[in-house]
């Protein structure tokens, strides 16, 4: 190596090799990240190009015509809104309260370790298993039949663990010494939660709930056997076409049907359906991300 102290900071062959390796490693990792994103953009671009001939407001508002080979997707779109709204109405309160319990009340004992394992496990149950559960529990055992109620409840249980997890994360971001300060002046646990913890974590909780909107809008398997149907005749643009004990169409299910079950469908229609579904989901997600960024920039401490 180099004995001359004058040249202490001069590159040696060893250092050059090190630097080369560094550059190579960095480029490889960069390539890997890019390899993840570029195909995605290409795919989305391709979908949009293919869908273009059918994409219009009319497509969204019209009902499917001629055995679903023409027309629009209104019944499926509105059905998805029904399912998502009802399932969140059930899962959001339960999930948020469960998150509050786990983060604010639970002590470190066996019961809460079991609850934790249950949440983790619930999050990992495959969607088709949720479908089987919905069929066995809600459709048959609870006798709701194949209906919007059964499908929404199935979706609700599926989204529950993620709402619990995001609520806990939001609550945990409120520093512990705020809670202690409240307890010191005689506030009860609930007063502390309501006046200090919740107001400062509600944004994070909301973000978690909104993200679940997009997840339940895209799910197909859990509603396939519990309440969604291939086709249901409703009026064009009708806002209240379904009853809760009846079946409905859903966007995700409609895409599956068009892609695999309907012969001679004009090519752009399934692509347009996919684009609408994708756009809905991504739009909801983007909203959640924007809200989260706004909250982070407005931190109170």
């Amino acid at each position, binding site marked *: 190596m180099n004995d001359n102290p004058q040249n202490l900071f001069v590159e040696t062959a060893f250092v050059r090799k090190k630097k080369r390796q560094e550059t190579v490693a*960095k480029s490889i990792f960069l390539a890997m990240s890019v390899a*993840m994103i570029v195909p995605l953009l290409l795919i989305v671009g391709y979908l949009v190009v293919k869908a273009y001939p059918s994409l219009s407001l009319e497509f969204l508002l019209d009902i499917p015509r001629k055995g679903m080979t023409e027309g629009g997707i209104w019944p499926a779109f509105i059905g998805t809104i029904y399912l998502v709204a009802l399932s969140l109405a059930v899962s959001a309160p339960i999930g948020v309260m469960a998150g*509050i319990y786990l983060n604010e009340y639970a002590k470190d004992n066996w019961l809460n370790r079991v609850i934790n394992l249950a949440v983790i496990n619930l999050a990992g149950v495959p969607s088709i298993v949720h479908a089987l559960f919905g069929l066995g529990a809600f459709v048959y055992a609870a006798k709701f039949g194949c209906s919007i109620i059964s499908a929404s409840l199935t979706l609700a249980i599926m989204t529950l663990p993620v709402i619990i997890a995001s609520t806990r994360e939001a609550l945990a971001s409120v520093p512990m010494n705020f809670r202690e300060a409240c307890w010191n002046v005689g506030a009860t646990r609930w007063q502390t939660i309501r006046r200090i913890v919740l107001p400062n974590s509600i944004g994070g909780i909301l973000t978690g709930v909104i993200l679940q909107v997009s997840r339940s809008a895209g799910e197909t398997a859990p509603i396939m*056997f519990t309440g969604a149907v291939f086709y249901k005749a409703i009026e064009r643009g009708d806002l209240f076409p379904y009853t809760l004990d009846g079946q409905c169409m859903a966007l995700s299910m409609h895409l599956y049907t068009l892609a695999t079950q309907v012969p001679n469908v004009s090519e752009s229609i*399934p692509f347009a359906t996919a684009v609408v579904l994708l756009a809905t989901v991504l739009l909801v997600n983007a909203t959640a991300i924007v809200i989260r960024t706004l909250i982070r920039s407005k931190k109170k401490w």
Partner: protein
Amino acid sequence: MNQGETKKLKSRPLWSIYGEKAIEILIKVSGISAIIFVFAIFFFIFREAFPVLSSPNFNLKEFLFSSQWYPTSAVNVRYGTFALTIGTFSVTALAMVIAVPFGIGAAIFISEFCGKRLKETLKITIELLAAIPSVVWGFIGLTIMSKLITQFTGAPVGVNVLNGGIILALMSLPIIVSIGEDALKAVPDTYREASIALGATRWQMVRRVLLPAAKNGLLAAVLLGIGRAVGETMAVLMATGHAVHIPHGLLDSVRTLTANIAAELGEAPERSEHYQVLFLTGVLLFCITFVINITADFVIRGIKRKQ
């Protein structure tokens, strides 16, 4: 001094005290509901599947280890799910072969090599990638990917193990990247500073210090990715074709456990033997993912305890 302030504060109204009690009970019940739901899922699926266990046509060994699946045959009914299990694992394995290096590489890039802005952008992109519904992935597999595969490999059908594997890889990438990045972030900055101070390049630091330190977290990320891939239904239903046999190559069509349930449940008459066997497949899937998720949790927990 004001005399009024030394007087004792009055106590709270009764309705507020009892209201608080009620809310706290509600919160506790919600907390426990997660356990109830897990047991309910197992109970209701098993309840539907149970009668088939005593059927003369059913044999547990055959169910697990035979690849003969003829559920609707009139003369020779066979309920062997081995081919489906292999289908699931072949697709999952291929997906992991693709997704693990890319996922971990991307996680390393995001956590160690890129600037703040790029990092935020990449994280948001990954979040959006994770949000794409599985039926859209299935649709992509069925239309775009299958066309590409028939063109480039000359395979007769484009929906096969390769197609499903690529789609599943893309689907499980986000989870591997985000959990892997969390694992890398959990390594204390002092480790990084210490090795950089000793003259190591970033790459040396990653290889010699970071990867060994974050090993368990990365393992958990991979396990959760596997969990997601095994449980995926719609994408594999649409992208892997429908052949119930043990695949011999990447271009063979297969059917997975999940896809099988989705494809046949609609046609199986309620409470028929076929229907019950499908529920039993559900129990099998539940158990497989249960084991994977619990293992991942233990791996993650192990790290937390060590820190």
